């Protein structure tokens, strides 16, 4: 029998970090306000008392410096985990992430490994001011050399954090900030899946809903409502945005013949663009309808009083499901 514990995503991330830091004393955690305060979302709360100021420390407010020094520490044999305080603040580090972190293993022909984890709370729905609600995943998914993952529930948060830290490659861990306090059971004994595998969340027969991060909850709500209305919806949480587990997606779409992809980010040149292209390549003869995408609009993230309209929700998803079924 496995040992389960109920906890919210933020606590599960914290527990995963604590596990990884206990398991390997080369694991460091640093960023803005992560030490005494425990981060603005308290994801690193208590780690300073547990591990001391050599293992977890605050940095100056300079994101390029945070990622650039993490690279140097990785060269010295450490496994740095860094926190970027909000999604909209990662861009000062964009150069270090894309031209350095992502390429040093390639540039050095394998002499260097870059086991760096960049944690970024991302996505909207918390009524925040500008630059606190962004979904920047496509920028990073376009960059060879990076791995990008996003948990949607506490169990995945706990295990994916540890798996990301064990990975010899750089991993960007996108944390769905508006779901931080969503609770669920965590299996403390056994990891559920490899880091880059998608998960079939709910079986269905008529249409496949593909979602990740904060939108998995919305997709599951849509499936629940759909079931009440007599529509059988399958839900896949892809969990990893680079690489994407296409075999799981394609198998599902071959079964249902319909796909709707959901995310918060603008749909133009997005994760859903890529998945739609791959479905058309690999499941063309199985499709009964074009792949439909539900996402943010191709606008900057709007002011908070408009975000409820802007963000996809169960209704927007079901409207897309209806369009798919109408073909």
């Amino acid at each position, binding site marked *: 029998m496995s040992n389960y514990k109920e906890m919210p995503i933020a606590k599960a991330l914290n527990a995963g970090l604590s596990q990884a830091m206990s398991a390997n004393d080369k694991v*460091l955690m640093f960023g803005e306000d992560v030490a005494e305060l425990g981060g603005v979302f308290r994801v690193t709360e208590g780690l300073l008392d547990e591990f001391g100021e*050599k293992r977890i420390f605050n*940095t*100056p407010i*300079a994101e*390029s*410096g945070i*990622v*650039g*020094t*993490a*690279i*140097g*520490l*990785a*060269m*010295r*044999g*450490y496994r740095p985990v860094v926190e970027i305080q909000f999604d909209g603040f990662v861009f*000062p580090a964009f*150069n*270090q992430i894309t*031209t*350095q972190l992502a*390429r*040093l*293993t*390639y*540039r*050095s*022909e*394998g*002499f*260097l*490994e*870059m086991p760096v984890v960049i944690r970024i709370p991302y996505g909207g729905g918390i009524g925040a001011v500008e630059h606190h609600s962004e979904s920047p995943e496509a920028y990073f998914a376009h960059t*060879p*050399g990076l*791995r990008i993952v996003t948990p949607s529930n506490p169990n995945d948060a706990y295990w994916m954090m540890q798996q990301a830290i064990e*990975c*010899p*490659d750089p991993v960007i861990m996108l944390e769905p900030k508006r779901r931080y306090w969503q609770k669920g059971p965590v299996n403390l004994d056994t990891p559920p899946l490899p880091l*880059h595998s998608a998960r079939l969340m709910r079986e269905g027969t008529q249409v496949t809903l593909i979602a990740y991060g904060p939108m998995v909850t919305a997709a599951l709500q849509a499936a629940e409502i759909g079931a009440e209305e007599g529509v059988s919806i399958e839900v896949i949480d892809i969990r990893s945005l680079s*690489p994407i587990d*296409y075999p799981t997606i394609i198998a599902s779409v071959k079964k249902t013949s319909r796909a709707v992809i959901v995310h918060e980010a603008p749909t133009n040149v997005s994760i859903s663009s890529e998945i739609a292209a791959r479905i058309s390549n690999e499941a063309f003869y199985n499709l009964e309808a074009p792949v439909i995408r539900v996402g943010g609009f191709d606008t900057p993230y709007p002011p908070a009083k408009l975000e409820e309209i802007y963000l996809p929700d169960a209704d927007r998803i079901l409207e897309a499901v209806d369009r798919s079924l109408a073909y």
Partner: protein
Amino acid sequence: MLQLLAPDGTYGVPKGYEKYGKLIEDLDEDTLKTFYRDMARIRRFDIEAIALQRQGQLGLWVPAIGQEGAQIGSGYAVGKNDHMFPSYREHGVALTHGVELMSILKMMRGVNHGGWNPEETRFHLYAIVLATQVLHAVGYAMGVKLDGKVGTGNPEEDLAVISYMGDGATAEGDVSESLLFAAVNESPIVFFIQNNQWAISAHIDSQTKAPLYTRGEGFGVPGMRIDGNDVLACYAATKLHMDQARAGQGPFLLEALTYRIGAHTTSDDPSKYREDAEVEQWKAKDPIVRFETFLRRQGVGDDFFDEVTAAGDQLAKEIREQTFALQNPPMENIFNHVYSDQHPEIDKQRAWLEAYEAQMGDHE
């Protein structure tokens, strides 16, 4: 400015700089001859590399002619455990720490993007995006401090880091962030700026209002200016401040005032933006000529200089032959080491390209 060797080859220790002069007095004749031999060697290499680029053998060359004093002097001051983070013009520093010169040519030819082992040589890979390496150097130095390898007093254990950058790179935000992180962490690092006066076509006067050696002050990093064309000043200042960093005294900044005699790269045309007279003025301060004068006054004779010239010609011949013999990299190098761990998309694309190439047959 610390200068121990005047452009006319006269040696003298300015008042207040006695601790630097002392480090030169500790050097034996063989070491001084090594400084000269390597300055001459790297210049000969540089001239040959320009020729190889002109003949289409290299995609690009980045000449360092005129900066040999700064590079050989500082390079020999770096200790046996210390780590170096270069920009992309530090061929002389590479030479002082056993990096195969052919590795640099391979990179400039387009055989690879780096290809030497930075852990083994302690000379890290060239960084083409300006100033990125400076933050890596600070992170590395932070790690050295975490490891407890600073200030133990055991020369077998302690180490420090030196980060090279040009005057142009100092404008990048990463340099400011590096100075700040190193200062608050009290990292064991020396920032070594080679101010060669020109950031491609932009003169230093348009790149900074305050002298570069003062750049660290507001961050809490003290600095000093040294004559970058004086190999002895570069050696002494780097040695002293690396020793201090290793002993736990925190970061320091050195601005080596030098001059880029050649073009920024072989794609550049300096005649569009600077006067020949300025170049001539700096040629009169040449680091190699001045050191030769000094050595001859010390009693070093023609035999030695003839031997160095012959060795340079031999080196040029060897690198020509080795460059002509370079093979193109295998096709799989497109995909190798993108990730350390297995990656399904990379594997799939590699397999596709292999099948495609096999089907298309021989291109020749």
